[in-house]
């Protein structure tokens, strides 16, 4: 089943610390009052200009295998290749905060207000990431598996963890994401820029655990998997 999801901008606002960390401000640091004021102004600009929405569709293991293969450019071994076959349910998704946020960011740069522009960009980046979490939270389907440990839904995206970014083409073709105004260009870059796409995989927590020792991990700057894996470990070992 394919479903369109719309949110209010306020529902998609990222946590303040996430935005500040995207600006290079570590947790525990005290930003100056001027920086705090810029954060508030960026939030206001985001609330005025964001148009968050998504398209999500269930997909079978077999159909996903074809989408994942894409143009045959994935790494030989990937965590996704290990996670997905053990998942109980899968869904493809594309989500965006809309083009107006990026337009606003560019206008601010053009007006020589780089501090607010960069902060708004960080708010929008954090919000785009949050869309994946919001979709994962509403991913229907998989109740407690009967082992008392529930199920965890996480998203995996083309361009990360060995899934080559050219996989966007097959993903977008499957979803028909232009229905919510999101497209990919020849470079597989999404428009609007602040968009996310990928597969939601639901299953026992253990399926999402992997050691980040793949060949492509060496050059990865994001390393967001480390925090994600840590949170997963903390949540599931405390219960």
């Amino acid at each position, binding site marked *: 089943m394919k479903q369109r999801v719309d949110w209010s901008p306020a529902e998609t606002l990222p946590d303040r610390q996430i935005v500040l960390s995207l600006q290079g*401000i570590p947790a525990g640091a005290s930003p100056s009052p001027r920086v705090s004021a810029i954060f508030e102004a960026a939030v206001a600009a985001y609330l005025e200009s964001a148009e968050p929405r998504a398209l999500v569709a269930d997909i079978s293991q077999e159909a996903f295998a074809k989408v994942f293969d894409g143009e045959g450019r994935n790494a030989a071994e990937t965590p996704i290749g290990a996670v997905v076959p053990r998942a109980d349910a899968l869904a493809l998704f594309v989500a965006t905060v809309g083009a107006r946020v990026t337009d606003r960011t560019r206008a601010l740069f053009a007006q020589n207000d780089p501090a607010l522009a960069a*902060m708004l960009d960080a708010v929008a980046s954090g919000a785009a990431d949050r869309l994946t979490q919001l979709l994962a939270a509403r991913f229907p389907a998989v109740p407690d598996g009967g082992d008392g440990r529930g199920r965890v839904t996480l998203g995996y995206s083309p361009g990360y963890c060995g899934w080559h970014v*050219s996989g966007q083409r097959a993903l977008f073709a499957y979803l028909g994401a232009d229905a919510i105004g999101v497209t990919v260009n020849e*470079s597989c*870059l999404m428009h609007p820029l602040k968009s996310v796409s990928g597969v939601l995989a639901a299953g026992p927590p253990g399926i999402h655990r992997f050691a980040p020792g793949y060949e492509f991990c060496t050059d990865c700057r994001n390393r967001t998997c480390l925090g994600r894996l840590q949170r997963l470990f903390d949540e599931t070992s405390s219960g």
Partner: protein
Amino acid sequence: MSLLRDIAASLQRGEDDQVAALVGQALDDGLDPAAILHDGLIAGMAVVGEQFREREIFLPDVLLAARAMYAGLGLLKPLLATGGVPTAGTVVIGSVQGDLHDIGKNLVGIMLTGAGFEVIDLGNDVPPQRFVDAACQHGAGVIGLSALLTTTMPVMKDVVELVRSRGLEGRIKVIVGGAPVSDAWARQIGADAYGYDAASAVERVRALVGAQA
């Protein structure tokens, strides 16, 4: 000169209105626009850059200072243009063809401007020929290329090869950067330098310009 020190100090605090007022006052007092630029604005940004490198301040603080710098620079530029004041060098920057990301590239441009470079920003989705043409047209010694996608990184190689095929190697240096870009990639395609982030890009560009001198 106390007024120039005040300009630098106000800039470090990100006080754009105050910087504009002080630059205006300095001009009214008959100070040389080049001195106001170098000993006021650039000197202030140099301190900001150092504090940023030492992690004493954060990116938003740097960008507030940059906004203040622009406020002063806006008053000086018409005078500097007619005075033929030398810059630290000219750098052509842009996001490569197929890539529409521009935040990182913009930050590099801001930091380079703060370091006294003349920056020609070609925007995003820039084809190789345009980079090289612009560098020749503006007498730039450095081309800075940004890419945020593995699919657009090969365009960087096209620019490097175009510089070579036109016999400009050595005269025009190429620096590359962006999330998926690495030092190894820079070496692989024959680029002259790799900038891990905006601050390191400025250092590398300085070194490249120094190497040309």
